[in-house]
């Protein structure tokens, strides 16, 4: 991997779909971009999703070409397994301090053959599969990972040395150290994406306690053909589930947990998963309990209708509690809002909580742009310059600025890239190649 240089036109923080799109939009205009990703692969949340709504296109089939394009673009330099520790204004631009975490693998030498992973004797719950599947202590992040390079999880290493012995290129480097690097950039785009609201905020739903109460990202992986089970099974005993419930707003629009906003995507990802369950398990009953369905995007209302037409039961009801009974089945107690508030109970094999979105990263202590009370970055000119933050030269795109779906995040990435291009010309940071050649 090339060393981080002393100067770039722009730094993009976050290698998910938003960050990749922003980097590509800048790279295509001839700007040099450093794209920093904290995980060992780019691709973010999107590469782990099963399909996207409302088209039901394969998510990784859309995401992986963007990943490859970002990795091979002559104007984009990737730095995975690294974190931006500080961004400070300096002159017209910024000085960025980046920590490269040790992979304990020489990235230039690793050929991604997986021999180390196959030989490693330690199995660990795999974060990419939400803990439902396994990886090894040394592993390639996932099948679509870019770069296809191994990384050693030193916390789970038993130092048996088997990986070192089988590696055909001798690329295991146990004495690798964290490295602090400094670079200068003309502008910054924050595209740090999302996390989901913690299940613990809604203890009445039993998330984290009951094995068959699942988070929506886990369901994405379970539905994926390359997921932890290779088909839809429930985690408690591998049963093919026949009765599944979705509980909407299980972490959004709830002032009691400090998350008053609507997360905007939960209705649609739940409808999508519910419909796909009907495709994957022919006799499954899927019930979706909601307060109201928000299908606001292009083709979304039609998708909602299609979901109901294909047999998903959509019921207006407020779920009060979920309790576990024998065989790890779950009883959902619900107030039926269209039946005068009648309270009903139903038994399910599995329940998916439609948890909301929260920011995955906070600027505090790293870069001096403000966050709103909900933790998302403040966009003071949200109507006309939605990517502007409170610090000139630092821009935001995607869920770092607030909950949104993939198309909106991509549009925002383009807007941020154009704002950066304008700034770089305005401050004279970027010299077009022809001008630079003449100057030399």
């Amino acid at each position, binding site marked *: 991997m090339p060393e981080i240089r002393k100067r770039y036109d722009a730094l993009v923080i976050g290698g998910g779909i938003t960050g990749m799109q922003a980097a590509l939009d800048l790279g295509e205009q001839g700007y040099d971009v450093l794209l920093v990703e904290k995980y060992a692969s780019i691709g973010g949340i999107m590469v782990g999703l099963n399909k996207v709504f409302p088209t039901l296109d394969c998510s990784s089939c859309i995401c992986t070409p963007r990943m490859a394009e970002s990795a091979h673009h002559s104007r984009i330099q990737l730095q995975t397994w690294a974190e931006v520790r500080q961004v400070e204004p300096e002159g017209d631009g910024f000085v960025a301090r980046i920590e490269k975490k040790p992979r304990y693998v020489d990235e230039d030498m690793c050929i991604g053959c997986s021999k180390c992973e196959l030989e490693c004797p330690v*199995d660990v719950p795999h974060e990419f599969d939400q803990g439902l599947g*396994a990886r090894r202590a040394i592993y390639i992040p996932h099948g679509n990972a870019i770069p296809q390079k191994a990384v050693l999880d*030193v916390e789970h290493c*038993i130092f048996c040395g088997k990986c070192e012995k089988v590696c055909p290129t001798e690329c295991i480097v146990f*004495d690798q150290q964290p490295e602090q690097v400094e670079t200068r950039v003309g502008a910054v785009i924050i595209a740090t994406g999302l996390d989901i609201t913690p299940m613990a905020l809604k203890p009445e739903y039993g998330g984290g306690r009951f094995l068959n109460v699942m988070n929506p990202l886990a369901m994405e992986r379970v539905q994926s053909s390359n997921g932890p089970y*290779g088909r839809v099974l429930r985690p*408690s*005993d591998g049963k093919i589930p026949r009765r599944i419930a979705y509980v909407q707003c299980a972490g959004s629009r709830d002032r009691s947990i400090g998350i008053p906003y609507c997360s905007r995507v939960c209705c649609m990802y739940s409808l999508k998963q519910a419909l796909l369950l009907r495709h994957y398990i022919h006799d499954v009953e899927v019930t979706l309990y909601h307060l109201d369905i928000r299908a606001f995007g292009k083709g979304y209302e039609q998708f909602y209708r299609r979901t109901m037409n294909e047999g998903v039961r959509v019921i207006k009801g407020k779920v009060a509690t979920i309790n576990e009974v024998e065989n790890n089945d779950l009883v959902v107690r619900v107030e039926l809002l269209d039946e005068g508030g009648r309270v009903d109970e139903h038994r399910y094999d599995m329940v998916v909580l439609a948890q909301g979105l929260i920011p995955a990263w906070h600027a505090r202590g790293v870069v001096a742009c403000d966050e709103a009370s909900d933790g998302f970055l403040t966009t003071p000119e949200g109507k006309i310059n939605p990517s502007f933050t409170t610090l000139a030269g630092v821009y935001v795109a995607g869920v770092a600025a607030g909950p949104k779906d993939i198309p909106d995040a991509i549009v925002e990435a383009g807007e941020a890239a154009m704002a950066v291009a304008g700034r770089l010309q305005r401050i004279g940071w970027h010299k077009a190649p022809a001008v630079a050649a003449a100057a030399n």
Partner: protein
Amino acid sequence: MGEKTTTGKAERPRRPIEILRDRMGGVSKELQASVKEQGRIRKLLRGALAGGPRTVPELGAECELPTTTVLWHLMAMRRYGQVVEAGEAGDYVRYALKGSE
């Protein structure tokens, strides 16, 4: 003359893996126990599957293990090519050792 230890032998230079292990404070007791337990469970599962394809509840009962534990280990074995699906039995999938199905 090289420096001599009290035993009279020159000390072997420490390998990077040893230096890293020491820097990490060795292998924790929890990790040692977890790896040992992993070995015990895999042996039980391989033993039961040697008798033919089994579902997760059947393996749980035969090996006296929680079914969620069986599923996780079975899926780890599947991922790394030791176990394959071998049809369905009611609401459950049957699994077999690779090559025996």
